[in-house]
């Protein structure tokens, strides 16, 4: 599908310019962007975080206006299904309404806030269907169920009746995807659709979108920072940088013969699975522009910092008219691991397997049912609220959804400085300096210190969250998908920053991620989670080079490779239905038992459900 010149493009963006009014005067979100999208084609838009990807896509939907933006110039030509060509920038709102959701579907970047908290998933999914397709309630529900299955949400029937906050980040993301796909739009805009997903599901979603494209000729505008995904999906690639398009070409051209410096730098920063093979310890990446820095492996110590034993966290499921507890979500089930000082344990696993819950349980942000948590000799489970607060001085968390975890009413500088004020670790001017330093380190311009969360791009928000976690110099950071929303170049820098800090200060990380390449880069140990349990854990090399559990093996196989010539075929992936973590209140979970295959390499022997 490389040669489509004879087909008229479905959408043409010509010289788009978008401005935002902020208190410091107008800010340009997109300066000058032009590219076409042809039917049945996937155009991947890559680029630095904050380069205007989301804004361009929102402009195409004419939704920037509602966020305070204004299309200051350019044309957005769109081919209606009946063959008319219209300029979206000038279309009436009523026409826009018929196009939105029906002819153009959009997947939003941040799934938590993108869903209405008070409606069930089912209601939000069927809404568009009933509107555009005129389906009956029943038909729409059947279709919704089908969509939920397509995006591989476990137990779709029940999920339809759940509220957004009851789903894991990945599930919410998939709901948003399902919503965008619902009406089989002719143009699908996907803004970082798989960022929150683990590789297996990502692979499935990508396959799904690919299939859709092939079968219905849907054009896809795919925004991502993940070059591997680009390689996997794209027909053509548009590279954006600071509000401009800097390069455009077919996927082969971009990967094999990048022209622009930024594209090169981008490709250089992509972590590749297998890069670390043979190395015992993680080490920072070599980055363009800092080649001369010596690369030192990070050894860490063998001293145990955090010891988690038999951690179990369950959520009650309410049902019936009186909303009684009818069952429990066994989000984390008999979880045990240790983290050494100065080392990183990565938790990987499919979406909804309980990674975030595990992380939160350690901080006791959700109260675990049972288990013990020991941080540097302190029994976290035994602490009262006051001591718990001081204990949190040593452990910090970066939340999965950066937007939701930032107070919409507070300036970013204050939010980053807040932990410092809380514990009074610094006083007076030093606070300001520290905040500035943190902004510099996470590569955010200082002028952002006075902005509010909604004025940032997704990746920028994530960096604010990282800066906040670093503010206290904690001993342990639980990084829940901390870098998944970042573009690769920044991701590489942030990863390097984290490793640097680890080297310097002996920080430990519990690194929750789905990006296997990143995990390989940063971890000393890796734990693979499935259905609330760790199915395999050992050193990085043990897990990556010798995966024993069948789930781990499937996971490894699903990792996309940043090379357009090594695309995975849908047939290679074997998808297994995901069992439910929900059990009736009477259910007794069996304990996890492990065998030590190699020294330090543990394998779950009891049934994992996989």
């Amino acid at each position, binding site marked *: 599908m490389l040669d489509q010149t004879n087909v008229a493009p479905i959408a043409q963006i010509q010289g788009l310019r978008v401005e935002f009014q902020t208190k410091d005067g107008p800010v340009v979100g997109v300066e000058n962007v032009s590219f076409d999208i042809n039917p049945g084609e996937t155009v991947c838009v890559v680029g630095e975080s904050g380069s205007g990807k989301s804004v361009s896509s929102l402009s195409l939907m004419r939704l920037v206006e509602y966020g305070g933006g204004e299309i200051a110039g350019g044309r957005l030509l769109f081919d209606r299904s009946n063959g008319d060509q219209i300029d979206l920038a000038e279309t009436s709102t009523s026409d826009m309404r018929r196009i*939105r959701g029906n002819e153009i579907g*959009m997947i939003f970047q941040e799934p938590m806030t993108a869903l209405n908290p*008070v409606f069930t998933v089912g209601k939000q999914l069927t809404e568009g269907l009933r509107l555009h397709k005129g389906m009956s309630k029943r038909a729409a529900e059947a279709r919704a169920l089908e969509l939920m299955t397509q995006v591989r949400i476990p137990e779709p029937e029940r999920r339809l009746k759940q509220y957004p906050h009851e789903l894991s980040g990945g599930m919410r993301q998939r709901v948003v995807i399902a919503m965008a796909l619902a009406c089989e739009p002719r143009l699908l805009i996907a803004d970082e659709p798989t960022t929150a997903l683990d590789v297996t599901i990502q692979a499935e979603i990508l396959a799904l979108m690919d299939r859709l494209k092939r079968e219905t000729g849907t054009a896809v505008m795919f925004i991502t920072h993940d070059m591997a995904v680009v390689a996997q999906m794209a027909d053509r690639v548009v590279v954006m940088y600071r509000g401009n398009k800097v390069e455009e070409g077919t996927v082969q051209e971009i990967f094999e013969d990048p022209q622009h410096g930024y594209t090169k730098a981008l490709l250089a920063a992509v972590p590749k699975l297998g890069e670390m093979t043979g190395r015992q310890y993680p080490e920072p990446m070599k980055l363009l522009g800092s080649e001369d820095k010596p690369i030192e492996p990070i050894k860490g110590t063998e001293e145990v910092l955090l010891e988690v034993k038999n951690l179990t966290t369950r959520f009650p499921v309410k049902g019936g008219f009186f909303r009684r507890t009818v069952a429990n979500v066994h989000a984390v089930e008999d979880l045990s691991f240790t983290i050494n000082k100065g080392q990183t344990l990565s938790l990987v696993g499919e979406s909804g397997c309980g990674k975030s819950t595990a992380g939160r349980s350690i901080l006791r942000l959700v109260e675990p049912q049972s288990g013990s948590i020991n941080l540097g000799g302190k029994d976290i489970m035994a602490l009262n609220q006051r001591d718990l607060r001081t204990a949190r001085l040593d452990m910090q968390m970066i939340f999965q959804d950066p937007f939701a975890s930032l107070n919409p009413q507070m300036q970013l500088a204050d939010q980053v400085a807040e932990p410092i004020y809380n514990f009074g670790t610094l006083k007076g001017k030093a606070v300001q300096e520290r905040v500035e330093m943190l902004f510099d380190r996470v590569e955010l311009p200082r002028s952002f210190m006075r902005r509010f969360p909604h004025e940032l791009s997704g990746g920028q928000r994530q960096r604010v969250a990282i800066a906040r976690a670093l503010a206290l110099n904690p001993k342990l950071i639980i990084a829940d998908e901390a870098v998944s929303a970042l573009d690769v170049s920044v991701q590489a820098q942030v990863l390097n920053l984290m490793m640097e800090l680890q080297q310097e200060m002996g920080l430990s990380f519990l690194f929750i991620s789905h990006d296997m390449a990143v995990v390989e880069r940063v971890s000393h140990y890796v734990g693979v989670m499935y259905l609330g349990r760790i199915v395999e854990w050992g050193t990085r090399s043990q897990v990556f080079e010798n995966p024993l559990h069948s789930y781990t093996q499937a996971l490894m196989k699903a990792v996309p490779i940043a090379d357009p010539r090594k695309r995975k075929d849908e047939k290679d992936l074997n998808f297994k239905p995901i069992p439910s973590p929900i059990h009736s209140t009477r259910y007794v979970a069996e304990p996890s038992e492990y065998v030590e295959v190699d020294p330090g390499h543990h394998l779950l022997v009891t049934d994992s459900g996989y």
Partner: protein
Amino acid sequence: MLTFTLRRLILSIPTLLFISFIIFGLLQLAPGDPMAQVPLTVPPEVKQKMREALGLGAPWYVQYYKWLIQFFWIEPKIFIDYLTNTSFLLGWLPDTSFYNGELRVISWQTRSPVMDIVIQRMPQTLWVVGLSYLVGIVIAIPIGIYSAYRHYSVFDQAGTFVTMVGFSIPPFFTGPLLIVIFSVYLGWLPSIYDTTHVVTDWESFKVQFYQMIMPVMVLALQTTAQISRYMRGAMLDNLNQDYVRTARAKGLREGVVVMVHVLRNSMIPVVTVIALGMPAIFGGAIITENVFKVNGIGQLLLTALFANDLPMVMTLTFIFAILIVLFNLIADILYGLLDPRIRYD
């Protein structure tokens, strides 16, 4: 939720007992005398005799105990008897006769059972105050929604202006003003509400309608102002949320976006305001009822207060307290139902 509701219901019994005790104490301590309205020509000894006949001489705990028994034991018996004997709903049940002539809660002013009067007063209060509440809500919600949606439009400004002026002018002014305009100058509407009027046909319905217009409107003005303000505020808070963008991206009509997605979220605080205002319906509207001579519960309470008719005041206040506790419970339950994120356990 069931356990929550049950627990709250059970806990509300001691709460109410405590409230009744506090109200009783307050009324006992407050100055005032049921003899205040007896003319000065009646000599003090006679007044003293009258007081004793009312049971005023007894120590407070005896009075309180008597009231408790009467209210919680004897009155319910009468109510059950009524239900099984004559009521339409349960009249088919075998007739009971639990009540055998014990002393009921007796009003000092009228020397008749308080509950009978309350029941007699219910219809007009419910009609006028209840209807005004309904009208108020029905007007307020669209105003609030539209004002927020067209933030700072002419409509918003005008709506704000009218509602705030309406709210800041007390009913003891608006009431007579309307009367002067519509009853005195124009002669369209009656200035005095006829509580004995019965609606039997279209003509009598029109009469009823005419006499209700003014009191309902005066009261509705207050409700409208209040609820539309809260509504507008809540809508403004929600209109900027991300999920609204999602809803728009689905191609929903603005109407649906606003009326379904935003409204549901914004209704959460407003529903509480509405629920909390409910007891006030049964409590009547003291000033407005008085101005238009609607003579509902509010007027009853006012006259009882002025006459220091403690059993009446006590019983009315306490019924009011029960309603408040009940509606707060309902508000809490609604809250949990409207916002799935809120947990009550």
